[in-house]
């Protein structure tokens, strides 16, 4: 297994749309395992393929307190949405930023597992929020897209500066 590089906003590759997975092979399983490891290490509760620059429609999620209940969803789609609430969200691709987002409280999901079998289930609470957040990634959307452009601009400046700083530090260490 390996820790993958997570793209940071405003990286344009975060705007790519993921492609439907057709081959359920060892390579897909390896991607899922690497994404889970990357997510746990971050630490995060959800990660989408687009965030690690892979075009396959795959998200990994674990909202359990003990980090022992991983969920891998291939080609996921939301069939039904009910209710609405607002909760602070954060994103591994937009580190350090937390903003309220309105999401459905209860959803019905259809997806495939890593063997290609179709699964359907209902989700609420944090799991529902997390699934909606990750599915947006697969369509190139970010949770800060609904903020005012001024606010988004400020976030962009902040993250660009931090990433520049991190790069300089890395170069400094290499020298």
């Amino acid at each position, binding site marked *: 297994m390996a820790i993958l590089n997570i793209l940071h906003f405003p990286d344009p590759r975060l705007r790519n749309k993921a492609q439907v997975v057709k081959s359920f092979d060892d390579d897909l399983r390896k991607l899922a395992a690497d994404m889970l490891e990357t997510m746990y290490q*971050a*630490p*995060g*509760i*959800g*990660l989408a393929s687009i965030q690690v620059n892979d075009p396959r429609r795959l998200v990994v*999620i674990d909202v*359990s*307190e*003990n980090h022992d209940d991983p969920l891998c969803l291939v080609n996921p789609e939301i069939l039904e949405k009910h209710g609405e*609430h607002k*909760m*602070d*969200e*954060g*994103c*591994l691709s937009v*580190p350090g930023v*937390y903003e309220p987002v309105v999401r459905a*409280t209860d959803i019905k999901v259809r997806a495939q597992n890593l063997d290609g079998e179709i699964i359907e289930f209902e989700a*609420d*609470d*944090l799991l529902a*929020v*997390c699934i909606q*957040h*990750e599915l947006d990634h697969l369509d190139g959307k970010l949770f800060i897209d609904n903020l005012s452009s001024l606010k988004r601009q400020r976030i962009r400046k902040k993250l660009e500066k931090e990433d520049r700083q991190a790069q300089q530090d890395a170069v400094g260490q290499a020298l």
Partner: protein
Amino acid sequence: MNGRTPDPGNPRVAAARLLRQLADGRSISDLLEQGLDAVSPRDRGLVKEFCFGVARWRPRLERIAAQLLSKPIKPKEGEVQALILLGLYQLIYMRVAPHAAVAETVEAARLLRKAWAVGLVNALLRRFQRERETLLTLADADPLSRYAVPDWLFRRIRTDWPDQWEAILQAANSHPPMSLRVNLATNSREQYLSLLAASGIEAAPIPHVPSGLVLGTPMDAESLPGFTEGRVSIQDGGAQLAAVLLDLQAGQQVLDACAAPGGKSGHIMEAAAVRLTAMDLDQRRLERVRQNLQRLGVTAAVVQGDAAKPQGAWADRQYDRILLDVPCSATGVIRRHPDIKLLRRAQDIPALVKIQGEILRAVWPLLKPGGLLLYATCSLLSDENEVQVRRFLEQAPDARERVIMADWGHCRPTGRQTLPGEATMDGFYYACLEKI
């Protein structure tokens, strides 16, 4: 999605997370060592108060919570359970404005992303406020809830201390004082008292303990005058009786066989110019012993070893004095470590009794004829104390008890016991054994 809460430094968020891990069987001191990084220094005291307070009163808080919940919180939602107990703790025991306690605890549920629990926590805490008197009366009808003590411990203490069990259980839930040990090798207790007075720090002598002082209000150790120079140490008065009972003379060979973290080792070196071997099983905790001795400016042989299986250089020597502060249930120091009530199980006691007996029998041959072994625990349970010592005396023909004549504590069939809260002290047991 990022799993971090927007505000990991929020004191109630931090406390709920720490308290959830406490349920996994980790000790508060362990948890607080790593768990406070995200919390600002200003709020760390508050988080500690939350954690110690909820640990101390957990059985009582859980009883009240159970009356307010139509069905128990699922085990996997440990953070929500912890938040509910924390909310009740603030309302019952803390001087936080009730509306703030409720609002802040509800906010913490939101920050922990427990959207489903926000309404529940709010409704539960508000209902407690309305029905407070009834709920408390109901909860306190049961002594297990009133004294916030697990059933097995309640039974044992009531059996072992038929006249004192209520006072013991009450004292176990009180806030312990901060006690000091004045280094009598470098200054007298009176000299150090005037040094404290000059710094505006209020303190009083501990009765029966020549080196002991108790502070009016707890404070940071580093801020005590002369602390870094070793003029004073933090130690409970009851623990300071060990070095006194050892009756030390300069030049003696002394073994402290379960030394970590080294409080009593330091005291031994302050009391007389002896040749001390400070030993412990745990290599990591021996580092604490070294630091303690270094701060006091004394030297001793600090060695790793298993007191139950003597071997190596330390086991080839014969000793004039041996301090055997054996691993125990720590039921005498619950007021300082309330998580003992949650972590200790009834089945731990026989295992501890077994290892204590093994250590006592294994170390006894290292004592010179005419030498003195001090058996010590911070337990209140007779199985670990007088029963253990009596069994040893029956089996060892060359051992006899030197009865402790003292005006502190309680005389037991063998040995002597301090009870928590009496003369500021924790609960310690001591028995002096002489080799014929």
